[in-house]
């Protein structure tokens, strides 16, 4: 019976070289199919020829729906109803991405993240409209596992039936951006490729951007070193909007953080505004919120300070004048 080769049998030089070459070829082969490449190495992804730029579902991007009342869930449902109902945005079998603000390791009463009840209401509406799957995620500022949990959003979204996931490296792909300063950046493809992308920010001030609302919330799908965005942030935020256009923006202004934003130091930095603001154009939603919410900016015209909105308006990305918006209000 032929003796089976044992590991302890000595191999000769030729065999050693042969095995080394085979192993090396296999490893190089892996490189061919893209293993080991960092996202920065790959060529920037062109926006495909057939436009996946989300078309506004309602005819009027200048429309802003506002609901005020003690119940945040009812407010959330109302604003969507005013915009034609979730069926206007989510069709049966759609893959929906709901992107709340899950940034800071703070409980819901601190107003530093989107309120979990608002997130829950949005998820429920999407599933009611027939979504196949609703994904909820954000690229957090603080430790992700803690932030997802302390904010209450993980539990609320999971209970409502969403898939709560963390952001993953392989979905950040270098994407071309037709901006004035920002030409390309790694963006999260799971958000860009979803059938419906719903942006659910929370209303806060921000030391550098002045305000963090719908547009700033989109930084949650940006990869790479986001600290670099802070330089010339007002132009770069406007640039992001040229490429990333959520189908629906639902701004949680249940509380408005007016001091020490975007993290806040205590509950004393919040004003209870009990409002939800929604619209299909993030620029318009931000402009409306900047002009009507009590941010205490100490200027006559908030847009004086909020330069990114000035830039967005100049670049024709959305309406910022209150008079030209179609505002529908409801009080509950």
């Amino acid at each position, binding site marked *: 019976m032929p003796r089976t080769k044992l590991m*302890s049998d000595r191999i000769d030089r030729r065999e050693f070289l042969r095995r080394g070459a085979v192993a090396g070829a296999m490893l190089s082969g*892996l490189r061919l199919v893209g*293993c080991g490449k960092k996202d920065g190495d790959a060529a920037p992804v062109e926006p495909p020829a057939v436009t996946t730029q989300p078309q506004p579902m309602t005819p009027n991007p200048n429309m802003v729906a506002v609901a005020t009342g003690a119940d945040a869930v009812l407010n959330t449902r109302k604003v969507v109803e005013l915009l034609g109902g979730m069926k206007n945005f989510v069709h049966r079998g759609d893959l929906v991405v709901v992107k709340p603000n899950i940034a800071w390791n703070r409980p819901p009463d601190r107003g530093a993240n989107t309120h979990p009840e608002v997130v829950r209401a949005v998820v429920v509406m999407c599933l009611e409209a027939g979504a196949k799957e609703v994904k909820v995620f954000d690229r957090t500022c603080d430790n992700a596992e*803690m932030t997802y949990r302390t904010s209450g959003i993980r539990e609320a979204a999971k209970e409502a039936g969403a898939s709560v*996931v963390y952001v993953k490296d392989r979905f950040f792909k270098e994407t071309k951006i037709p901006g004035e300063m920002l030409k390309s950046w790694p963006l999260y493809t799971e958000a860009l490729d979803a059938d419906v992308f719903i942006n659910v920010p929370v209303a806060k001030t921000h030391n550098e951007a002045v305000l963090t609302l719908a547009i700033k919330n989109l930084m949650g799908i940006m990869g790479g070193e986001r600290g670099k965005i802070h330089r*010339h942030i007002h132009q770069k935020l406007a640039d992001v909007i040229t490429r990333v256009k959520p189908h629906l923006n639902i701004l949680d202004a249940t509380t408005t953080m007016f001091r020490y934003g975007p993290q806040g130091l205590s509950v004393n930095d919040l004003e209870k505004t009990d409002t939800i603001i929604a619209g299909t154009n993030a620029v318009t939603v931000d402009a409306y919120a900047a002009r009507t919410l009590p941010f205490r900016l100490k200027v006559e015209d908030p847009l004086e300070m909020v330069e990114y909105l000035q830039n967005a308006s100049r670049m024709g990305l959305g309406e910022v004048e209150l008079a030209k918006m179609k505002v529908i209000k409801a009080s509950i």
Partner: protein
Amino acid sequence: MLRTFRRLSQGFFLLLFIYLIVTATYPLETLLPREIFLRFNPFLAFVVMVSARVFLAVLPLFAFAGITILLTLITGRSFCGWVCPFGTTLDVFDFGFRISDFRIRCSAFPSGAPLGRFRKVKYLLLTVLVVLALFGVQAGGWFDPLSLATRTYGLVFFPFTDWALKAGLGALARVPVLGHVFAPVHDFLHDQEIHYVFRNTVFRFSLGFLLIFGLILALQLYQQRFWCRALCPLGALLGLLSRWRLLGLEITQDCTDCKLCEKVCPVGAIEDRKISPVECIQCYTCVEECAAGAIKVRFGQPASKEQVLPVLPERRAVIKSVALGALLTPIFGLNLARREERARLVRPPGARDEDGFLDRCLRCGKCMKVCPNNALHPTLLEAGLAGLWTPRLIPRIGCCQVPCAPESHETTNLCAQVCPSGAIRKLTYEERLKTRMGTAYFDKSRCIPYVEQKNCGKCEEHCPTKAIKFRRVGVELGKPVQEGVVAGAPEVREVDVPYVDQTLCIGCGQCEYVCPVEGEAAIRVGRTQNYVAIPAP
């Protein structure tokens, strides 16, 4: 039969040990304390109590060590043979060496070494460590096997395996066809609510710890369980307690003098038909291997004194060790690190004053493993030789999250919750916000507003106590920032330059962590100049 029970017991305790290491992470909602093994350790309990000169406060932390002592008085060094995860690890590698013929092929090592040659070393080492403790230097943590095992598994094996798992699955998830199979596996592990794996942790000096373990493993090629028979101070202490063990072994008249037992004993406890109760780890290999069935388990003291193998070192060697311990003491007081490095020594939140900290810290690395942000790392020389491998914050790798325990916990710092010896105090949320780990300071030669005259503000955004504030200054473009330049003039721009309000800064390191400047951050955390220790409860 006995051997099977023993293997099962070893397997159980090793798996339990590994489980406690892997699950020592956020949110730490567990009944069994993750550091429970270290609490059973009488050697560490002893050196901590002696060097800290604290008895009553430390006793409850190590109450379980009494169980180990009781167990040893009755059954001898059964801890070594049935429980110790480090010993079991060495046995596992030993098994691997034997089945792969590795031991035989390493002909550099003599196989017929005298069994008891290095036995006495561990007693002398124990003496040195006890003397050092008496002089106030707690050096036990470096040599203790449970501490070694915790460091090796927690800071070397786990992170390397975890990294390989994540990198491997991550790479396979991107491959065109296989990706459909591996992506869901990768994503499932990534998204699990309690993040046991894919922790992305990497520890300073982990290769050093691997090398040390490798060295101990290399000694295995010389003699089986070389660590246990020649070096282990815990084994030495338990050995001393085993002299009058009730459950022992004796070689009866049936012995044919074939010397098989001497060869199979993993710790070389048998010589000339005598078994040493001080060395024997109760593995019962000799009982089962003896062809004549001459070795029997007996209850009570041996019939005659000749049965007992003498192994303890002579008085002269002990005296020399005492002298060595005394002489080594001042060496540990040496501070060899540069002053800049020492000024950046930031301890975990709730750490005691430096002297008390060094007395208690077991250098086990449990706090480093549990830290969810991978912020704690072992020191090398920054804390002096005495502080080797104690934890420090390296904010550029990870910052302190305030709070890091879930709301359900009363204690808000996870590192304190797993520290077996109380070197890190437990803090409530309110206490944590007032506990200063260090103080941040700006490097104005690197900070963007100072250097480039443009706003940044990333540090202020992340500061949990809002200790960073801004001063709006007018700057002449191209010139360094000066106060008193009038804003509004054509060449002048307004810039918000940051500064630290040192009364508010708690030294968590969030600012240093997020600072977008390449390389060394423009804001750094250093040792607070006027450190005030938390008053004793």
